[in-house]
């Protein structure tokens, strides 16, 4: 089993935890609707929803063509944007924007 990393990260549109999931799934089953940069929305599984909010930045990866989200902390965010292509200045600005967005995420989503 080899994980495939998708380029980019996404934002939580909504999420839930099923306490009695259908046959073939283990409880608790964490499901999130994630919007990737560019607008495509994915249904994903995740390991945890603690600390997760609508508008939270998450990383998405596919394992055996099932998508998983994981919550990004400030350090993970900085790392994610540091590794992306582009000039150093762009990277620093992406990190700054991402951190700023984290601060304002509650307000930004409340009006959508």
């Amino acid at each position: 089993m080899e994980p495939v990393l998708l380029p980019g990260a996404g934002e939580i549109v909504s999420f839930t935890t099923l306490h009695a999931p259908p046959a073939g799934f283990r409880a608790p089953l964490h499901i999130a609707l994630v919007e990737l940069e560019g607008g495509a929305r994915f249904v994903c599984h995740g390991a945890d929803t603690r600390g997760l909010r609508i508008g939270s930045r998450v990383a998405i990866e596919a394992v055996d063509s099932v998508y998983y989200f994981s919550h990004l902390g400030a350090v993970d965010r900085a790392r994610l944007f540091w590794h992306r292509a582009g000039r150093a200045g762009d990277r620093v600005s992406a990190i700054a924007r991402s951190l700023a967005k984290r601060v304002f995420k509650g307000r930004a989503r409340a009006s959508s």
Partner: protein
Amino acid sequence: MRDVWVAGAAMTRVGRRSERLQDLMAEAAHGALRSAGLDAPDAIVVAAMNPEEFVGDGNFASNAAAHLGFAQAPALRVETATSSGAAAFYAGFALLAAGLRRAVLVVGGEKMTHLATPRVSELIGRSLDPYERSYGATMPALAALVTRALMARGVGARELAQVAVKNHANALRNPYAHFRRAVTPEEVLESRMVADPLRLLHCCPISDGAAAVVLTADRAGVRVAGIGQGNDTLALRHRQILTSFRATQAAAGEAFAMAGFGPERVDVAELHDAFAPFELISLEDLGLVPPGKAGRVTLDGETALDGRLPVNPSGGLKARGHPLAATGLAQIVECVWQLTGRAEGRQTQARVALAQSIGGLATNNWVTLLEAA
């Protein structure tokens, strides 16, 4: 287009029933024919969401018609998932409006309490997008995604709980209801978590039951003023907005355009509260309350039985119960009773009634407007 009238209406008690689906349908159908003073219909429209899986019978239009004693009447079956009853009503309406028939029996029913809950959930879940289902998404799971987005927009837990509290209080006055007991906001807020943030008492029960109406070309007590259908993507992830249903908005637009009046004329409404938040979303989608106000209005008692706009006097899907294909017709039966003074114990003063039915996760919705003659 010719005028269409509702000449008769009847339903069974909703709940855990031991009778066969055909027997439940017969009870409702013969009741509706009796109340219309009609011996036999020209045609029959049958609504059943999934009798093949729930009870193991197919060819269900003929099956039901034969069981009713009208084996030779033209019969057809209509299915749009959980709004099948409303869709069947539309088909019956269309037959009369086009002048093809003069008296049509529309009957819908479902029988599912004899199956285990996970099996019922799986069968209902088949109305969802297959890809989303492959992630374990069920109807409550997707409704939970909608609910969390709604709460992020400012709808509070108290407001959600109040929908269930109100509808249980109404069902206490309805002898046909599945649940005839009151619940408190605390009970709702402390009930078992089903799909975070949706709790057990936010969700409708699994119910058996049937409902029927007789539609005629001859003038009767209630006129079908308007009817509309609205549709949306099967997949929730293909929608930009989670906190309102395009399918309800489109259906309402069609229905009000046909009726020639707006939401301000509606005196009483039966809404599809399969999950408590859906009642709040629907109130706004239908234009019955201004955007963002449904929670406040509910908490203030405006949608209570004695409020400005009584909503779900029957108890709604939440407490009257949700026997799938019966539900859209049960809503219309309640509206007819409200308009003709036959809603004993929960009677409102109404000249115009609205019924809204949601199919699947709001992929195939219906709005019906009825007016007292």
